[in-house]
């Protein structure tokens, strides 16, 4: 009983110990905030990645691709085990290409990844239609040019024709008026969807004198649309028959905006049949994309079954495909946690130093306690209990502070941005509207336990010292 009383009384009266509490509190709060933000980023990134990719891919290993993908899809459907677990499937063709377009008369070239999909089939898998920028074009998704884009395309075509004509044609020799221009045909160009970042760029804002507008010494930029729906672009890729280039001229239908720079800056989508025709790979595909009803439960078994069914193909889950990226995120988080735990380790050394001082200060009192019958173990428990109490109080306060900071992190970020004038979270880097956070109870509990353990461990030495004090020498201590 005396141990509890003294622990509590020391907590309330030893102001030096407040330093220990504050350092544990700050360490715990920092760890919780960083962990929650890193987990939020990781979760959001995983969700985005998983949303963009299919659950499982059956990929061809050769240049030839997968023959008759529709038949293979049918074969999968006929398998009762797989049919029960698979929600949707679609064939896909993916190849590297060069995108060519014009801006203000200047030709721009950009390497891209060209994906041929059946729009509605791909939409059933998810991770396609919902990223089409114009919401009105999402249901049903299509590579057909809509009316407005078609008008833009026709206007562009008309301008091309006009520019190609001589400005001052000589009068006809027979005196008759020149022939009427040809009537536009019903020809409609093939549709292409391009990543948002390919079609947009951040350009410095200019004033009326043509000079860049500055704010806090930095040029102000704005997002400008470089390629509009209806504009023509040319895609050049490689034939599926032999190593030679093939080209495809189409018009932009819409943009794909996933808020993932890797996809928005590099991916271009066209209709699968158009890409098959371009590459002379009719009835072929490079992969079959599959969505499962319950991914977490069935990914292992379905992958195994598909591997047995298609031994010449590579079957991989989205996690396996994104393995390096996910592993990198996990490693970053692990290293950051380790480094931040060192903050609490530093707090532990603070506890060691302060406790050692307290033991010296309390030497005579320890002698008195022993004279009254307290055992060495009991005296040791006083200081261990004190360390535990400090750790608990610090960890609980730190948890409150950390959780509150995490919950209101976006409001705090906005306030700091207003006060300092510096943008703390650049939304253009991640395309996230807000700083993503994910407070996981298990993480918080681990952090609290770790902090309390460090506090107790670092109070062992001073506690041992107190326990081993000789009562007579302690009583005589000055």
């Amino acid at each position: 009983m005396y141990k509890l009383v003294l622990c509590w009384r020391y907590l309330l009266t030893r102001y030096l110990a407040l330093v220990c509490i504050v350092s544990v509190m700050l360490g715990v709060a920092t760890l919780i905030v960083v962990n929650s933000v890193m987990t939020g980023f990781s979760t959001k990134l995983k969700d985005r990645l998983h949303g963009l990719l299919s659950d499982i891919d059956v990929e061809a290993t050769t240049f030839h691709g997968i023959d008759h993908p529709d038949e293979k899809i049918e074969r999968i459907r006929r398998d009762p085990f797989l049919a029960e677990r698979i929600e949707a499937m679609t064939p896909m063709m993916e190849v590297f290409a060069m995108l060519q377009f014009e801006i203000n008369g200047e030709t721009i070239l950009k390497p891209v990844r060209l994906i041929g999909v059946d729009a509605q089939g791909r939409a059933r898998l998810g991770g396609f239609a919902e990223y089409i920028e114009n919401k009105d074009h999402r249901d049903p998704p299509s590579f057909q040019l809509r009316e407005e884009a078609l008008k833009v395309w026709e206007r562009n075509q008309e301008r091309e024709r006009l520019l190609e004509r001589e400005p001052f044609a000589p009068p006809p020799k027979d005196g008759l008026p020149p022939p009427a221009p040809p009537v536009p045909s019903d020809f409609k160009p093939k549709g292409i969807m391009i990543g948002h970042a390919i079609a947009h760029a951040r350009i410095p804002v200019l004033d009326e004198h043509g000079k860049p507008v500055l704010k806090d010494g930095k040029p102000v930029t704005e997002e400008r649309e470089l390629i509009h729906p209806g504009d023509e672009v040319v895609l050049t890729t490689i034939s599926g028959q032999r190593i030679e280039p093939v080209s495809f001229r189409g018009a932009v239908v819409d943009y794909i905006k996933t808020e993932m720079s890797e996809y928005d800056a590099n991916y271009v989508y066209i209709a699968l049949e158009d890409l098959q025709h371009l590459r002379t790979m009719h009835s072929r595909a490079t992969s079959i994309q599959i969505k499962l009803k319950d991914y977490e439960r069935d990914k292992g078994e379905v992958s195994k079954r598909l591997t047995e069914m298609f031994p010449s193909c590579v079957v991989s889950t989205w996690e396996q495909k994104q393995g390096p990226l996910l592993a990198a995120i996990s490693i970053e988080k692990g290293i950051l946690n380790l480094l931040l735990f060192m903050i609490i380790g530093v707090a532990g050394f603070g506890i060691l130093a302060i406790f050692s001082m307290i033991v010296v200060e309390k030497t005579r009192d320890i002698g008195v306690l022993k004279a009254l019958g307290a055992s060495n173990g009991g005296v040791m428990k006083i200081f261990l209990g004190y360390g535990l109490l400090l750790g608990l109080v610090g960890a609980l306060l730190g948890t409150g502070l950390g959780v509150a900071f995490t919950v209101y992190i976006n409001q705090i970020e906005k306030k700091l941005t207003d006060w300092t004038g510096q943008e703390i979270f650049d939304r253009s880097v991640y395309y996230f509207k807000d700083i993503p956070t994910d407070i996981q109870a298990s993480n918080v509990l681990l952090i609290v336990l770790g902090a309390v353990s460090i506090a107790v461990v670092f109070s062992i030495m001073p506690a041992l010292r107190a326990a081993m004090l000789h009562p007579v020498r302690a009583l005589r201590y000055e």
Partner: protein
Amino acid sequence: MLLSAVNLHKTYRKNAVVVPVLGGLDLTVHSGEFLSIVGASGSGKSTLLHLLGTLDRPDEGRIYLEGRRIDNVPAKQRDELRNRTFGFIFQFYHLLPELTALENVLMPLMIEQSVFGWWSRRRELRQRGAELLERVGLGPRLKHKPSELSGGEMQRAAIARALVNRPRVLLADEPTGNLDADTGAEIVRLLRDLNHQEGLTIVMVTHNLDLVAETDRVVRLVSGRVEEAQPLPAVHAGAD
């Protein structure tokens, strides 16, 4: 015979320096006796008290309590002896500054009791502590901290603390050493009253020969040995 020491030797060592303090001391304390131990500074008075109360262990010799040897028992038993059998009073009171007077008095009981034991008997035990403080004249000062008490009041609280667990022997090491003459005399009278009214055995170490008149017997230590046990007038003659 309640407490006895046979052939006690104690030497203190600090690096290469060896300081013999007790060199073959024999002492007997009778039950109900108020014994004072006098001697010059460095004669070993406090060392003897510490050995008797198992705060320290002799290098040689034996100590008996009611015929049972206590100097060589395990640490746990020595802790129990100091908690229940012996009560200590020190020159500098040694009250715990973070606790109130009542809490200081109750400390031996808190050491003895488990959390559950304390919780189930807390009212009874608090009552005992309060009564003891009342007995020593500190009834209105239960909630005062040591920093709010005078020297005499602190020593009274220390006496109450030493008595709370109903010890067999009270060991007082220079209890008036830090007090003025009048207050010191009051303290010794209080001890005498406890001895007469309750038959409490008291062993008091002091260098103040004026106070030994309140005691039953005086033992003089010279160079770590009992020179003689004298009746009171002879003590003053020896001091002269």
